[in-house]
């Protein structure tokens, strides 16, 4: 891999992410850890650089957990007929909320029996515009089977595919800054929130604020899924750990 000068910010972000994940308080300490390959850090480091673009079905185990455990738990707690609300925040260019939609359509037998509302939100309006357009390259689709691509995408050209209009029309995209309560509250309360790989970039106070905002955006008993390098126990005591076969997620206490 070659990273030229314009990629400096990208490289700094990935190194900072790994320093945060490993608890290294200085670059020197982290570099020593990397050179010693402590706890397989070289692989983690390389992974941090290769998952530079998000893609469909990323962290698939959480999607599996959604359909194997989380939705059933939420339906048990909800009034009959109430819609299931799922929030992908930040949603970047839309791969995650569309992944959730496709995963549900493909893997949840009860998908026709319930109203399911999926909202994707991001602070970056450029990313939201791309998400609404729903056009993706080969790399983003690499984990989808050809059959799934055929069902939910139409080829734009040899290198790009667009989400079918029915599916694009099913996901609502909004702008949000998750540390601004005035922006998060209008989104209402959700059954499940996917909030992956963003809290680790915040300072302590912003992280507290974001965690409290997300707590308010979850229905009592609702679940929040974080990125695999994140732990809510280091972020906020507001949530309880919920361990399932497919994933460890966090839950707003029922009461």
């Amino acid at each position, binding site marked *: 891999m070659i990273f030229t000068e314009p990629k400096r910010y990208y490289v700094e972000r990935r190194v900072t992410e790994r320093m945060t994940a490993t608890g290294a308080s200085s670059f020197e300490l982290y570099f020593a850890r990397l050179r010693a390959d402590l706890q397989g850090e070289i692989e983690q480091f390389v992974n941090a650089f290769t998952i530079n673009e998000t893609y469909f079905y990323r962290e698939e185990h959480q999607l599996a957990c959604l359909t194997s455990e989380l939705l059933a738990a939420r339906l048990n707690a909800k009034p009959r007929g109430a819609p299931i609300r799922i929030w992908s925040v930040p949603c970047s260019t839309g791969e995650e909320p569309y992944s959730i939609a496709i995963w549900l359509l493909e893997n949840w037998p009860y998908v026709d029996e319930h109203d399911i509302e999926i909202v994707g939100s991001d602070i970056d309006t450029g990313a939201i515009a791309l998400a609404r357009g729903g056009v993706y390259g080969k790399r983003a689709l690499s984990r989808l089977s050809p059959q799934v691509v055929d069902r939910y995408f139409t080829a734009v050209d040899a290198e790009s595919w667009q989400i079918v209009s029915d599916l694009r029309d099913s996901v609502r995209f909004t702008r949000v800054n998750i540390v601004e*309560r005035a922006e998060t509250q*209008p989104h209402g309360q959700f059954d499940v929130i996917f909030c992956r790989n963003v809290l680790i970039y915040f300072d302590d*106070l912003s992280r507290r604020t974001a965690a409290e905002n997300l707590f308010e955006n979850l229905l009592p008993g609702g679940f929040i899924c974080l990125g695999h390098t994140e732990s809510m126990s280091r972020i906020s005591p507001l949530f309880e750990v919920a361990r399932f076969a497919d994933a460890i997620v966090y839950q707003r206490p029922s009461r």
Partner: protein
Amino acid sequence: MPLIRKPPPAGAQTGPAAPDSAAVFEALARGTDDERWAAARAAADVPGIVPALEDALEREQKPVVREALFSALARIASPQSIEAVVPFLRSDDALVRTEATDALLAAKEAAWPYFAALLRDPSVDVRILACGLARDMPSDVAVKLYCDVLESEPDVNVCAAAVEVLAEIGETAALPALERCATRFSDTPFLVFSIQMAIDRVRSQASGSRA
């Protein structure tokens, strides 16, 4: 397709209204769990709220609400709000002590002027907690504070806490204080060992950064 797209929930098109100060004071004092939470979240924007937050913290039994109360004080980040948090470092409840520590860390620069005094607090437990707090200060200031601990602190566990931080942030300027502390506690093998580890680490970092 069973997926639906709906407008935002009715009545939620805008963010929370500006807090009604009187209602926040009232809810903090006598509200339900949900009302106290909402009041705590709104409190940072209410003038003169710090004494009410401090009173509310004294009474509050719900950890979730307490978290929001501490957050409000961290967000206000005034001398008065920091002074409201500090006494909770002395709580009998370990959870409350941790919450207060996290709030002071979140308050960042606003809390820094209090750390030197906390490192000289009569309570050993508070001095140990303070060792964890000061690590985020600018390194030259922090190293000086930790070296002062190593030179004069009578409790071995407080010194050990300072050594642990110095092993991470230490500079060569800390080496003499580390060596003198090892001499002072030469009959405490675990501390001597920790100090030697810290010295080796500081030296290796210094030689690494020169390379």
